[in-house]
């Protein structure tokens, strides 16, 4: 830890924990005279600088088709947080940042509506009057009852600190993307379920209608149809059409590319999060997997209802709430992620930056930081997991041929399918006014043999070619905004040849076998147009043959992303050409401390609104492949990925939710001891997520606080800490388990680790100790039993006394070697002015970092360890080492042993081939012990 402890304390880290508003003033010794211009909101620590809300929060808003922009919920859900801040007004602001891309001009009742798999857009927006700045993340959710089946939402991170939004843009974006993906995934699931229900309803309705029609047919054999019969037939036809329509929608939603879902995966931390918070997620199975499993299975429990011919108009009904739109599990998870985001970015920007610098610097110390850093191992371990996908993405480009092939293919299928449907859409718009014709056509279509459907499609398309009207409509609707490229292209792609459509469809069919397979479970399978059979196996190649056709543009784009810019220029002149992710980085702000580039945007100060065009790459429907490539080409992206993985793994994040963070320290130690007992029985150290919890901020704070208490309370704290630092096992002997555990937890901050696995600390043990225990554990909480059985325990303890220091909590004695160094007094000064546990923890960390660097120097100084010439004796080398330790590193007496021990650990760790293969050594000295008493 390289952060200045007191500055961190000054940022009021406690403020947000239990009682954010009744917190007593800072301790006198830390208060600095306020910045003279504080009244003007200029003091560097001011959270309020003109804002009407007290601290950062997350706002979720919707652009409701009924009432317009409206705020839905805030995180934290506490009116005090946003205070007098006008959420309605701000919702209007953030929703008015154009986000129309997903709107599909789809009049109700038209056939073959189109689902758009749009990327989210990310915008930074500011309102100087309100003093609010926001990172706005737009997304769309599907709703069967909504206009165009989509409902636009946005999540905004609102802060009074403009720089925070700017500088943390990458991180915010990454985190919100995760939340958004989670929400969307849940929404897709819910939407698919909705569709299935609807299909069953329709199927049932059709059966009913069909029976009625049959009855009527039989009833009247006059040879002509009564108006009633015709009406019924029309109704039936409508239903049939509706079925096809919904089938189609279902297929679309199911064909959502798997890869796309995989990429922003719900990270494990989050999973655990949710599990801890609510028990809905089964602990055994990965929620995502289970979700995937049942995402496409029909729910047999559903009883179909009859659907009235006249569907209710959308204004009559109440639209679904956000919660209803999303699968519960995912919704909870999203909320957890959001509160995690809130937790992660709370506090002053200075604090966040310091943290990031700290982390970045710590990464550079990768050789020594395993010794004392609590959660580096978590980071690293998780990073390994994280690296799997990212490595994939890196590999993707150069080594595409074999296993990566499906990715571009699927992308093609999405894009292609969409465009083909869009062309149908155009037709529909044209037909809009012509209800009668439509009905007739619908009847026809219902009677069509599925085999002929394709031709039907083609035919219709040909019919639509001549109409420019629809294009205009689409154009005005969409081109006012920054268009989703594919949409706009689709709308401009008028002369679609039937071949193109067909071949696209083919390519779709050939690829998404998965979804088709699952489709077969659907009862009304027979109605799925059979036109997707693979009659054109070389669909993609054919595509290229039609390259001159505009309709294929995005095929090319998705197949060969580098051409993207060129092909776009013709069709989309008003959008800045080829913005890649680096565009959102722009200039770096001055005084930038963080080694990674952070986004900065041009601000137009006049209106105080930061208007940032949504980055185009986000909107590319077929973008994932392209995105990946950009991530690779742009170092800053990589960087941000790294950072965000570090973030997400910040253990404090894991405890983002209050419920979890309310767990007491003892709970932690319970889990830990459980862990360690598991580890001891299976003799393997199992790195587990629990260790992450262990090293949470709260844990650190408590540990620091208790360590501080220990130092103040026991005059012999120094030799005890020296024992820990020099690798001599410290046995904390006591009757009361909670006291022992507490002290063990506190002292564990001084225990150097062997490597990237949990610290060698055993919180509580009641069986007699064994030589293996000293080899394995460096800090042990031992139960003192009053029974004769404890004699064995005490006997072994005295037998192995040369390997241990014994801290007897009941009689308040310590038996351990003498310590006369200067290091520990600085580390653990009982007269220290530090009062806060977390501050003390940071103090310890920085001291230990210093110590580690000494150990590093000592270990890796070539001349110290190797004889200068062949005749040099061992003694000469040893004396050179001693003089280095004493003179160059300024160590006295026993401090030398500490550094030597750390050096041994470093050597062992460095030479270790793979973690955990070498046995831990037990090193000891034959030195007399002394008994200390209070």
């Amino acid at each position: 830890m390289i952060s200045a402890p007191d500055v961190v304390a000054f940022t009021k880290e406690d403020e947000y924990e239990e009682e954010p508003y009744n917190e007593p003033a800072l301790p006198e010794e830390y208060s600095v005279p306020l910045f003279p211009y504080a009244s003007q909101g200029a003091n560097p620590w001011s959270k309020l600088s003109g804002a009407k809300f007290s601290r950062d929060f997350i706002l979720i808003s919707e652009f409701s088709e009924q009432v317009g922009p409206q705020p839905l919920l805030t995180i934290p859900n506490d009116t005090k947080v946003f205070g007098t801040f006008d959420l309605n007004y701000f919702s209007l602001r953030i929703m008015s940042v154009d986000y129309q891309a997903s709107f599909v001009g789809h009049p109700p009742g038209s056939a073959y509506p189109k689902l758009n798999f749009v990327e989210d857009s990310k915008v930074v927006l500011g309102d100087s009057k309100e003093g609010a700045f926001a990172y706005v993340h737009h997304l769309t959710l599907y709703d069967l009852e909504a206009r165009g089946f989509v409902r636009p939402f946005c999540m905004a991170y609102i802060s009074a600190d403009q720089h925070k939004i700017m500088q943390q843009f990458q991180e915010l974006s990454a985190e919100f993307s995760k939340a958004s993906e989670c929400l969307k995934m849940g929404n897709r699931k819910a939407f698919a379920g909705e569709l299935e229900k609807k299909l069953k309803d329709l199927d049932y309705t059709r059966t009913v209608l069909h029976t009625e029609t049959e009855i009527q047919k039989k009833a009247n054999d006059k040879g002509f149809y009564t108006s009633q019969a015709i009406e019924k037939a029309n109704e039936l036809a409508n239903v049939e059409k509706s079925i096809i329509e919904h089938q189609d929608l279902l297929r679309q939603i199911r064909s959502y590319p798997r890869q796309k879902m995989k990429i922003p995966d719900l990270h494990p931390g989050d999973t655990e999060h949710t599990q801890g918070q609510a028990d809905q997620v089964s602990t055994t199975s990965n929620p995502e997997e289970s979700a995937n499993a049942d995402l496409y299975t029909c729910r047999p429990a559903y009883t179909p209802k009859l659907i009235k011919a006249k569907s209710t108009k959308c204004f009559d009904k109440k639209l679904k709430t956000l919660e209803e739109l999303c699968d519960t599990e995912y919704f909870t998870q999203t909320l957890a992620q959001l509160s995690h985001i809130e937790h992660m970015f709370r506090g002053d920007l200075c604090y966040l930056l310091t943290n990031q610098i700290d982390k970045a610097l710590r990464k550079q110390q990768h050789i020594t930081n395993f010794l004392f850093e609590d959660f580096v191992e978590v980071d690293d371990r998780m990073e390994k997991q994280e690296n799997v996908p990212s490595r994939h993405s890196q590999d993707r480009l150069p080594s595409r041929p074999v296993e990566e092939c499906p990715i571009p293919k699927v992308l093609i299928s999405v894009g292609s399918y969409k465009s083909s449907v869009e062309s149908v859409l155009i037709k529909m718009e044209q037909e809009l006014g012509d209800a009668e014709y439509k009905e007739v056509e619908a009847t026809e279509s219902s009677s069509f043999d599925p085999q002929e459907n394709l031709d039907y499609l083609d035919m219709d398309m040909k019919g639509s070619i001549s109409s420019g009207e629809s294009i205009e409509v689409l154009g005005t609707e969409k081109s006012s905004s920054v268009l989703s490229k594919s949409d706009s292209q689709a709308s401009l792609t008028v002369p679609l040849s039937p071949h193109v459509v067909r071949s696209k469809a083919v390519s779709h069919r050939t690829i998404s076998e998965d979804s088709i397979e699952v489709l077969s479970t659907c009862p009304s399978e027979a109605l799925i147009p059979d036109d997707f059979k693979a009659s054109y196996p070389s669909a993609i190649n054919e595509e290229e043959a039609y390259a001159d056709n505009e309709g294929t543009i995005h095929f090319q784009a998705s197949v060969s992303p580098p051409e993207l810019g060129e092909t776009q220029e013709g069709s989309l002149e008003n959008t800045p050409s080829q913005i890649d992710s680096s565009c959102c980085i722009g200039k770096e702000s001055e005084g930038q401390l963080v080694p990674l580039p952070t986004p900065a945007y041009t601000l137009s100060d006049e209106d105080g609104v930061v208007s940032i065009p949504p980055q185009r790459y986000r909107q590319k429907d077929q973008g994932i492949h392209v995105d990946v490539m950009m991530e690779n080409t742009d170092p800053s992206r990589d960087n941000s990925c790294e950072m965000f993985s570090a973030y997400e793994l910040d253990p404090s994040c894991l405890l983002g939710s209050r419920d979890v963070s309310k767990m007491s320290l003892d709970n932690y130690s319970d889990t830990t001891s459980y862990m360690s007992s598991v580890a001891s029985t299976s003799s393997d150290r199992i790195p587990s997520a629990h260790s992450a919890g262990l090293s949470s901020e709260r844990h650190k704070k408590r540990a620091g606080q208790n360590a501080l208490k220990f130092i103040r309370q026991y005059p012999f704290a120094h030799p005890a800490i020296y024992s820990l630092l020099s690798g001599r096992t410290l046995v904390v002997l006591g009757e009361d388990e909670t006291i022992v555990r507490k002290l063990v937890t506190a002292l564990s901050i001084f225990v150097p680790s062997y490597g990237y696995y949990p610290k060698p600390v055993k919180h509580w043990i009641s069986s007699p100790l064994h030589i293996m225990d000293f080899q394995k554990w460096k800090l042990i909480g031992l139960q003192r039993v009053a029974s004769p059985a404890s004699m064995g325990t005490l006997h072994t303890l005295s037998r192995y006394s040369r390997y241990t220091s014994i801290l007897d909590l009941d009689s308040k004695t310590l038996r351990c070697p003498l310590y006369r160094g200067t290091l520990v007094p600085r580390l653990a000064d009982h007269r220290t002015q530090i009062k806060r546990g977390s501050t003390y923890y940071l103090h310890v960390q920085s001291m230990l970092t210093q110590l580690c660097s000494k150990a590093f120097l000592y270990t890796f100084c070539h001349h110290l360890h190797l004889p200068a010439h062949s005749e040099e004796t061992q003694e000469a080398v040893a004396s050179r080492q001693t003089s280095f330790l004493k003179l160059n590193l300024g160590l006295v007496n026993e401090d030398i042993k500490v550094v030597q021990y750390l050096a041994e650990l470093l050597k062992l760790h460095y030479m270790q081939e793979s973690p955990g293969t070498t046995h831990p050594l037990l090193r000891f000295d034959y030195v007399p012990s002394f008994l200390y008493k209070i």
Partner: protein
Amino acid sequence: MLRWLIGGGREPQGLAEKAALQTIGEDQSQNPYTELLVLKAHRDIVRFLVQLDDNRFASAGDDGIIIVWNAQTGEKLLELRGHTQKITAVIAFPSLDSCEVDSQLILTASADRTVGVWDCDTGRQIQRVSCFQSTVKCLTVLQGLDIWLSGGNDLGVWNRKLDLLCKTDHLSDTGISALVEIPRNCVVAAVGKELIIFRLVAPTEGLLEWDIIEVKRLLDHQDNILSLVNINDKSFVTGSHVGELIIWDALDWTVQACERSFWNPSPQPDAQQEIKLCQKQNDISINHFTCDEENIFAAVGRGLYVYNLQLKHVIACQKTAHDSNVLHIDRLPNRQLISCSEDGSVRIWEVREKQQLAAEPVPTGFFNMWGFGRVNKQASQPVKKQQENGTTCSLELIGDLIGHSSSVEMFLYFEDHGLVTCSADHLIILWKNGEQESGFRSIKLFQKLEEDGDLHPAV
């Protein structure tokens, strides 16, 4: 304020009585073993340790498994499974220098009445002999003849290819407890109280078959012979359960010296019988010997005795060296003596001249050989009650190794890697010189840095 008391670790050594166990505090400046590695793989008592080469050793015990270890890293190299019962004898069969194809073998005898031959490079069981009538209790290799002998109720002679060359008749139901090669193609076997000399007859032109002939029976011991060790080419020594120590001439099998009460260095002939009665048999049984040119070091009961061959009497002793029976002793090249015992401890001793007894006639050559330079270091050593006649030296405890929780059965010393101990607590502990190991690790570290190219960062 803080005050501290001297802990129990530093017991005043001067007050320790002769009969009481000598203890050493935690301040063991001469004890080099400051690093240990616990090797856990056996599931029962580990009784045997056999050195294979400079870096490897094998361990075997009651679980019937033989494990080959790397003495440097403590890495488990091989696990040889095949015996169904406990191992009763293990011996390494070194490969012939002339024949490089053969790898080193391990012979193991087990209570399942089989002898296994293992290749200790591959871990393969090469062959297994199961035609024994009784458990083989000892194995010995006669390298000169390239044969090995198995001693159970009878004595079998085998060649490297595991062909039974010849065997004796049934000797006794108790079986051969020890077997030692002596010159002129003879072996001496300890069978109960008797020593039997056998002569091996190699095939010649006239005689096609190997033969083994019983040459002589020596009946001088009054109780079971527990230990049998070669001193040099000319003599061997035996020790019995009642503390008789007999030095034999290896050529004509006559008694060179016989000590029946040497464990009591101040013999009072009339009191001898009484002492014998009041002392437990266990306390005087000779459990193990080790020798150098000058002395025989004997583990007698709980004590250690140094018997000088020239003076023919005990020159140093430690009557209570351990809390319990001493099971194994060995003399290290660095002139230290190590003993291990049923009490679970391993102790390191050094034979030192007693400075007070300058008047005693002591062969100077002996002391020159031992070359004591630390006389003044021991100035504070307590003046012991003297064993008046002849104990001119003392055995000084310079360190103890505490780690095992049960009887330490055996140990093995590696020049480069330290000490290996095996115990009834199923563990094997590798004791290492911490400073030396630290140096090794540094060297390895820089080697690795060199290999990884980290020493010369890419320009």
